[in-house]
């Protein structure tokens, strides 16, 4: 299956090409036109497989990556990944088209599109990977690219804060998900999702099954902004609007939902899974819609509405998991309808929410503000944008003739059905599901009305606007119009989508159920007067009443004390972490070199001497030692003399030169003991470091007699003696240490194995070349570190433009 591999790799390759293209293309055309080709081509490539997927085929291909650890690059294309693949590439194309007109060429487009392509590749990697480790890698990569995109305007403080918050929360979730994956691996012995699904009966009894379930759900909930992790999504709205439309409503935030759908066959039959997914989803649905009403920023309103809609989809997957508990039977097929509604709403949400985000972006771009207190009366000035807002808003509110109506009716139906389920002791609380769903839908209706009426009706307040409003250029309107066509089109022809796209995805969620087509209901717009329709009518009536009386009940929101919001808890947690780690670090990082040496040497003595004593390795055997010659003794005395003199030296240069005496004497020893390589190296290193030290000492003040306490002085003396003793004892003990097999015999074959007769160099360049290579890299990093620390100091006259 090369197509899927191309789908994952092409965005990465193009992201790498962007720096090269940017310089050439900058003057000719907007970089976006080149980038647009990537998702568009991929969309067409994937769309070619729709008929085959609809017939129930799946495509799998394995590229061996780290087979020794069971980590293979396995791509898997089935109905579920197809939906996401089409969403990522389809919405991606429209968003990039939109961004060409939204972002001017003055912005650093190469960064923007590079991150966007990185994200696209990573997201496609998440949905097409069958291997959990590969999936996890791509998963974190989406968090990283989202971080970079939120902080795209990084001169703004709010952007950086939002990016950090999103990163902290999603990576925390990602890490717990990783732990969950590892537990699954322990339980099942495989990283392949398909194999785990196949062995689910065996894994279910493992003790780690429930912990893995909870940890994986934390990953899904953080990514999909579920309560109480939803706080990052409104702050992520600092990103440019195309990013919000793409990552933070259509694709990335649905990764968690993808994960839940993908793992439904594994965990679906568990009560914990049912309760966590459906209840957290419902709470998120309510909390998001309830909070969306009070927002004054259009994007913040849409962010909370996204949170709420994600909760809706999540809870539907929770309700649908009941069918796994019962297994396949004629009357349980009914429960699978919730999952069907979830998939259907997933697509619908991407269409109308994408259009709405782009609409808000147009308003922001053409009017200069997104604050509904300053907006109003734009209907006559921006008729096309208004139409887009009405179509998107009514679809979100669940009104006909838009696709949101269909999926919302199915949602009500699923919530009503679940009342009658006996399992998991649902029946006691069963009535709560439709009630919460209904109340949340009323709020959804209210905020949709706020969105439309506050922006386009009422009085135009020209004095509060920065620009004179006018209709957006066609290019900017094109993408939301295409999405609106889908919003209406899906309403009239839902079963085309149902057959080709949703039907095979149902087969992925319910692999144990024999026929997927049986699970796919025929979607009707009109199904007679029943409970769902009456609920919708109720939503509209009460919604209109609430909207009209908004002023009188809005003070309700102030009852909640600001101190107890989740944002406050998050901020306190971060503050606590920063403060306590700063305190801890400052306690030992005193900035005093002497203290650092004390840590190093005490640790050294404790570890080395401790280990030697503990393992009883200190044993001397002088029998085989050769006699000490007189010239060796002379050298030793020279070194001792120099070493002792250093302590009493008055000037830094004197101490430095005495240190040089020590170094050169060691080189002499190497010569005496016939180690020419070492002697040469030692000589040159000594010369270069002496020159370096002399350079550095130019900047240091004269040596001052230390005014330290007597106790301190004695402790230093004791530490020095211990260090000296340790080195001496270890040196003497090691000479005759024979517990390990000597490696020397191996190196004797250096000529035969490495083609060189200099053993030292064959070790450096061949036998242990990996060490050498990394040492070279470390050396470069150290050099660059010195360079940047000395050269790139911030200049004082530079104004601080970071915190706007």
């Amino acid at each position: 299956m090369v197509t899927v591999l191309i789908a994952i790799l092409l965005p990465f390759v193009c992201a790498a090409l962007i720096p090269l293209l940017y310089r050439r293309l900058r003057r000719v055309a907007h970089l976006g036109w080149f980038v647009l080709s990537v998702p568009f081509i991929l969309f067409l490539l994937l769309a070619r497989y729709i008929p085959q997927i609809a017939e129930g085929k799946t495509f799998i291909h394995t590229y061996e990556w780290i087979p020794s650890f069971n980590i293979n690059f396995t791509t898997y294309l089935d109905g579920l990944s197809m939906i996401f693949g089409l969403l990522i590439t389809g919405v991606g194309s429209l968003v990039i088209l939109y961004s060409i007109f939204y972002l001017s060429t003055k912005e650093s487009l190469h960064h923007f599109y590079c991150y966007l392509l990185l994200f696209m590749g990573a997201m496609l990697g998440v949905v097409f990977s069958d291997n959990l480790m590969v999936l996890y890698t791509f998963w974190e990569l989406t968090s990283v690219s989202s971080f970079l995109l939120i902080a795209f305007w990084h001169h703004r403080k709010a952007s950086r804060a939002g990016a950090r918050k999103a990163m902290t929360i999603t990576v925390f979730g990602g890490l717990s998900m990783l732990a969950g994956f590892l537990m699954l691996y322990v339980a099942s012995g495989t990283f392949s999702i398909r194999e785990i699904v196949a062995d689910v009966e065996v894994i279910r009894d493992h003790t780690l099954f429930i912990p893995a379930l909870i940890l994986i759900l934390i990953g899904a909930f953080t990514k999909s902004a579920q309560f109480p992790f939803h706080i990052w999504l409104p702050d992520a709205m600092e990103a440019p609007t195309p990013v919000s439309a793409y990552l933070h409503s259509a694709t990335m935030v649905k990764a968690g939902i993808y994960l839940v759908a993908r793992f439904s066959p594994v965990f679906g039959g568990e009560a914990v899974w049912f309760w966590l997914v459906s209840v957290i989803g419902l709470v998120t649905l309510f909390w998001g819609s309830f909070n969306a009403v009070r927002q004054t920023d259009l994007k913040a309103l849409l962010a909370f509405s996204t949170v709420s809609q994600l909760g809706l989809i999540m809870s539907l997957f929770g309700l649908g998991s009941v069918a796994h508990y019962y297994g396949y039977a004629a009357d349980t097929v009914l429960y699978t309808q919730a999952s069907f509604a979830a998939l259907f709403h997933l697509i619908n949400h991407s269409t109308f929410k994408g259009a709405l985000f782009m609409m808000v972006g147009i308003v922001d771009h053409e009017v200069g503000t997104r604050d509904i207190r300053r907006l109003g009366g734009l209907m006559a000035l921006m008729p096309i944008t208004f139409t887009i807002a009405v179509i998107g808003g009514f679809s979100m509110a669940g009104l006909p003739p838009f696709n949101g109506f269909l999926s919302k009716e199915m949602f009500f139906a699923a919530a009503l059905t679940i009342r009658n389920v006996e399992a998991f002791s649902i029946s006691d609380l069963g009535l709560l599901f439709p009630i919460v769903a209904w109340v949340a839908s009323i709020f959804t209706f209210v905020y949709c009305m706020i969105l439309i009426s506050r922006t386009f009706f009422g009085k135009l307040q020209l004095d509060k606007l920065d620009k004179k409003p006018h209709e957006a250029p066609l290019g900017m309107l094109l993408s939301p119009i295409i999405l609106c066509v889908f919003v209406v089109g899906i309403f009239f022809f839902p079963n085309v989508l149902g057959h080709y796209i949703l039907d095979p995805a149902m087969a992925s969620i319910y692999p144990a159920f024999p026929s997927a087509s049986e699970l796919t209901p025929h979607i009707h717009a009109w199904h007679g007067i029943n409970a769902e329709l009456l609920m919708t009518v109720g939503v509209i009536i009460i919604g209109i009443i609430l909207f009209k009386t908004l002023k009188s009940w809005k003070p309700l929101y102030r009852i909640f004390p600001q101190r107890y919001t989740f944002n406050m808890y998050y901020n306190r947690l971060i503050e606590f972490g920063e403060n306590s780690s700063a305190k801890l670090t400052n306690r030992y990082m005193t900035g005093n070199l002497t203290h650092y040496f004390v840590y190093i040497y005490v640790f050294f003595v404790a570890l080395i001497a401790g280990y030697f004593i503990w393992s009883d390795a200190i044993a001397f055997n002088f029998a085989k030692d050769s006699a000490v010659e007189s010239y060796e003794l002379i050298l030793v005395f020279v070194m001792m003399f120099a070493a002792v003199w250093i302590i009493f030296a008055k000037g830094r240069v004197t101490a430095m030169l005495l240190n040089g005496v020590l170094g050169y004497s060691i080189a002499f020893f190497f010569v005496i003991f016939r180690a020419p390589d070492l002697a040469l190296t030692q000589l040159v290193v000594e010369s270069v470091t002496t020159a370096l030290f002399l350079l550095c000492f130019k900047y240091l003040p004269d040596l001052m007699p230390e005014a330290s306490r007597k106790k301190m002085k004695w402790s230093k003396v004791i530490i020095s003696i211990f260090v000296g003793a340790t080195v001496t004892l270890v040196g003497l003990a090691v000479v005759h240490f024979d517990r390990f097999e000597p490696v020397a015999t191996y190196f004797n074959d250096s000529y035969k194995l490495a083609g060189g007769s200099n053993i030292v160099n064959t070790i450096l360049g061949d036998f242990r070349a990996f060490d050498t290579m990394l040492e070279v890299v470390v050396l470069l990093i150290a050099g660059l570190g010195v360079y940047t620390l000395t050269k790139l100091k911030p200049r004082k006259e530079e104004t601080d433009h970071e915190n706007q």
Partner: protein
Amino acid sequence: MKINDVILRTVTKTVVFIILTLGIYLFFAGHHAPGGGFIGGLVLASGIVLLYLAYDIETVHKGMPFDFKKVAALGVLLATGTAIGSLFFDAPFLTQTHSYINVPIFGKMGFSTVTIFEAGVALTVVGVVVTIILSISEDE
């Protein structure tokens, strides 16, 4: 006060050639005799540092217009490049190979990919040592 460094400059002119030649010799000798990339690079670097000590930075830079940060980067690229290169010949990471080829005039000579690897090491050492010393000495 101006330091009279005529002696240093005159000596440097001759000695630097000896040092640089020694460095290159050590680099190539490394395969069978004492020497090698690290030591060769160090000797070369010390020769260049001596030049910088005797003359001012501008003068030396005119003769050797290298950016030593880039020299170091090139070295790392060579070292890691030879390591990765072996993957393209379906051999494990960092596999080194060697053979003997008859070269006119010089006769039979040994060639080894280790030489490229060691050249990377040498260039990194030269680049880093000179970069560190230059950036510290130029610091105001």
